[in-house]
């Protein structure tokens, strides 16, 4: 008995010491970054931090937010890396985020950092609202390209515009909240009333309108710049248009989930996520970075995107989200029949 006990304890000691040699923290990281980028992000991070291993849990922003909120009382994630800042503000409101100022946060553009100190989230990059415009189909129909958001209400585009439904897509909400912030509440709803007359369909995902434009299923897709650049690279006949009133945008951000058992490793990841090196890594797909002055232009995208971004008040958007969505649903979702 004593023999087995002592063997067991010495075995345990052996195991402990050997694991100390291999000390490796596994971090469960929730993310919504593009599937193609996951391996690259993981490898680059793990090369810089060999003692930490990332286990990705990836899904679309809506699903990840729903999942995080559903797990509110029993969080499974250690860190979120690459989820929309607006979603993170919802989590912050539920007290789910651990405030932490990563080393080097002062170097980031302040609009990419949570307004409280210490910040609850720090940004990585931004995706910016844009129109995907199918030139081939437009020519067939004799349409002229729109220059501004307000152009989209012109009668010539009737039935040729597709946009994401803000009730199921973060991109859709970003558009609506940007219009309200730039046009003012009354004008924005008037604009959307006009836009609604031209909409062929509201989609559930933010990149789908652009891919529909790329496939000629619609002429104009209200979407964001990233899928547009991707579709153009694969040969789709589309132009990416940034409307002249300015574009709404959303930051992809990083945050620590409160109550994580791996706080030290989580902090290391967040520290690394704001470095210049990490931002250069984000640059492969994203033209706008949180780290100022290092962004290289992305193929098929203009270099001056940052100047086209509106001043986006995330806190306002998060606090008015429920009300805006309710109003939107009341105005446009009840008209269920497709247009003839």
């Amino acid at each position, binding site marked *: 008995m004593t023999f087995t006990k002592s063997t067991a304890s010495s075995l345990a000691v052996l195991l402990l010491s050997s694991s100390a040699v291999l000390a490796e923290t596994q971090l469960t990281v929730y993310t919504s970054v593009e*599937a193609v980028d996951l391996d690259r992000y993981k490898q680059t991070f793990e090369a810089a931090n060999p003692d930490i291993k990332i286990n990705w849990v990836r899904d679309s922003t809506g699903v990840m937010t729903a999942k995080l909120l559903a797990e509110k009382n029993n969080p499974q994630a250690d860190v979120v890396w690459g989820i929309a800042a607006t979603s993170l503000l919802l989590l912050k409101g539920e007290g789910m985020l651990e405030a932490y100022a990563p080393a080097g946060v002062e170097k980031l553009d302040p609009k990419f950092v949570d307004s409280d100190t210490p910040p609850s989230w720090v940004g990585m990059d931004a995706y910016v609202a844009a129109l995907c415009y199918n030139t081939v189909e437009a020519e067939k129909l004799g349409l002229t390209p729109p220059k501004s958001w307000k152009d989209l209400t012109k009668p010539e585009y009737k039935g040729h515009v597709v946009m994401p439904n803000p009730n199921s897509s973060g991109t859709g909400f970003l558009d609506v909240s940007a219009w309200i912030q730039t046009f003012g509440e009354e004008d924005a709803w008037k604009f959307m009333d006009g836009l609604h007359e031209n909409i062929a369909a509201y989609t559930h995902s933010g990149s789908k309108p652009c891919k529909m434009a790329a496939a000629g299923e619609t002429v104009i897709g209200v979407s964001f710049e990233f899928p547009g650049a991707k579709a153009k690279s694969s040969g789709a006949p589309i132009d990416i248009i940034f409307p002249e009133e300015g574009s709404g945008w959303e930051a992809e951000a990083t945050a620590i989930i409160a109550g994580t058992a791996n706080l030290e490793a989580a902090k290391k990841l967040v520290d690394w996520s704001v470095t210049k090196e990490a931002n250069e890594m984000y640059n492969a797909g994203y033209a706008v970075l949180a780290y100022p002055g290092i962004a290289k232009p992305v193929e098929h995208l203009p270099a001056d995107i940052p100047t086209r971004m509106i001043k986006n008040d995330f806190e306002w958007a998060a606090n008015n989200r429920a*009300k805006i969505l309710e109003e939107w649903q009341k105005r446009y979702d009840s008209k*269920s029949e497709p247009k003839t």
Partner: protein
Amino acid sequence: MAASAAAVLPPGKTLRQSLDRDDLVKRGLMVVISLYLLFSLAAPLYVMLSKSVSIYCFDLSQFEFQVSDETGANWNAPATAQALNAATGAVPAADLAAGSDSRLAATSFFKDFSFRSPVKYRLRGTSEQTRWLVGSQPGGGITWQEFDSNTFRRVTLRPMQAYGLDNFAAYFGTPALSRSIWNSVLMASLSTVITTAVAFGLAYALSRSLMPFKGFFRLVTALPILVPSLLPGIALVYLFGNQGMLKGLLMGHSIYGPIGIVVGSVFFTLPHAFLIISTALSISDARHYEAAASLRASRWRTFWTVTVPGARYGIISAAFVVFTLVITDFGLPKVIGGQYNMLAVDIYKQVIGQQNFEMGAVVSVILLVPAVVAFAVDRLMQKRQVALLSARAVPYQPKKNPRFDALCFAWCALVALFILTIIGVCQLAALVKLWPYDMSLGLNNFAFDRMDGGGWASYWNSIRLALLTAVFGTVVVFTGAYMVEKTDGFGAGRAAFHFLAMLPMAVPGMVLGLAYIFFFNNPANPLNGIYGTMAILVVCTVTHFYTVAHLTALTALKQIDREFEPVAASLKQPFHKLFFRVTVPVCLPAILDISIYLFVNAMTTVSAVVFLYSTHTQLASVAVLNMDDAGDVAPAAAMGMMIFYTNAGVRILHALFSRVVLKRTQSWRIR
């Protein structure tokens, strides 16, 4: 002699069948499987029902404010938000009903508020549960917190959780939501009428004519079972979308919406309706037709007085199956429904799009109603069915009739063309590089690892899920059915078990999936550990498809004479020996059918698992949905075709395997 002895002797103990070890084991097993159904079905549903009455509202009596004068040193008397609101009427009662994410600006209670004024504000809760936000920083509690006016403008109040029927009131008060009830019922009814008519025509042609290629048509009609219900939606987009090949046929109408939903629904429900109706039609008594002929009834009259009444229970049953399938289906309206809202998609939109779990639960409860009604009516009708086929029945033999046979052939060919076109278009879409601008063929759409949705790993996960479901499910279902059918006594327990086993049929997959989130993703639940694993997907899928498998097993078991058990007992053989030596081999065809049924359905199901998969357990069928959702329609079609190849391959293997095994185990059936 026993009777006379009983007359003289004083009344003894009432006789009870003594329980031997076998009975105990059997009852134990039945209890275990009952518990399985209780925890995988009844308990989650109960938790979901209670979630639908969980509401959020702003309880203004929970918040107390104090305002200072301009110096910031003197404070007025504390007043609750309720009192302030009563005085100012700033927030109408309707705005106090809330969702879990609602916020109410604290400044709305102070008409003369200005963020530049030196006035200070204090806020506290009247209970520890009171919550508010400063900006997006959570706060709460019963101690006073002080804010300058510039900070105070950022203070928003949070709602409290309570119980009530307000969610249902809100649902029926929002036309955007309640409209879906009508839409869903309309779509399901239309599809039911069309599918039942088409399936009846098919079954009639195949059983009452001498047309050629019957085997081929039977095979083609079964194909839609092998693909997820989203696939016809994708094919219809390619056929009738704005770039569709046959767009002109719609005469300006859009395929996105009711037309697409009905056409797609007919496609994926056809095999189910066809199976049921063709079984009903195949049981026919030629003597009725002889009687009709001798009474000089016309063919038309014979059809309405003999054929249709003979198959009426089959037709009714098929209609209810189709109705339930369409109203609970989620994949098809998601892909092709456009702005036409349906109940099942609403659940998804509420939960995934808006994180409004309570409203999702409300829609789930509403979706349960038509499904349960359809199920109950169908059960009732089945009870009224009497045996049509008497021992003296003479099987009907169709006679040659070239015109009629040609007509039947044309009908079957038309339906087969429809089915093959849908599948063919998906195959084409999967191979074309960039529809419609680069129509060259290639395999780039099969590079799933470059898309959202989980890549190739999701395909292998689906195969794992299907295999696990087939093995585990078959064991559970068959054992359960055996215990119900072959146990003596314990009537109440058996009835309860049978009820539990029938229940999954009436529970839509979306509802089951949502109920699983509420039930299993609760840290207080000891079964919380299986959340996010393959195990919960297997449990969910087995439960979702339990009923049909259970009925198949029961039918097979009923064929075995009940005398086997007493004989085995009298020979002092334990029941497990009988079970493995006699019951299982005899029922092997049914067991194989159950496992293939579970396998195919586990490959194609979307609705139940869409809430439950995690990153490591992403599934091919969900990948089809997510890739289509992200606009990667061609890769979605490619993944759908992978599911089709797999199911078709497994079906063929199953047929070969059955032939070999059945030859060995079923030769006793041949005299």
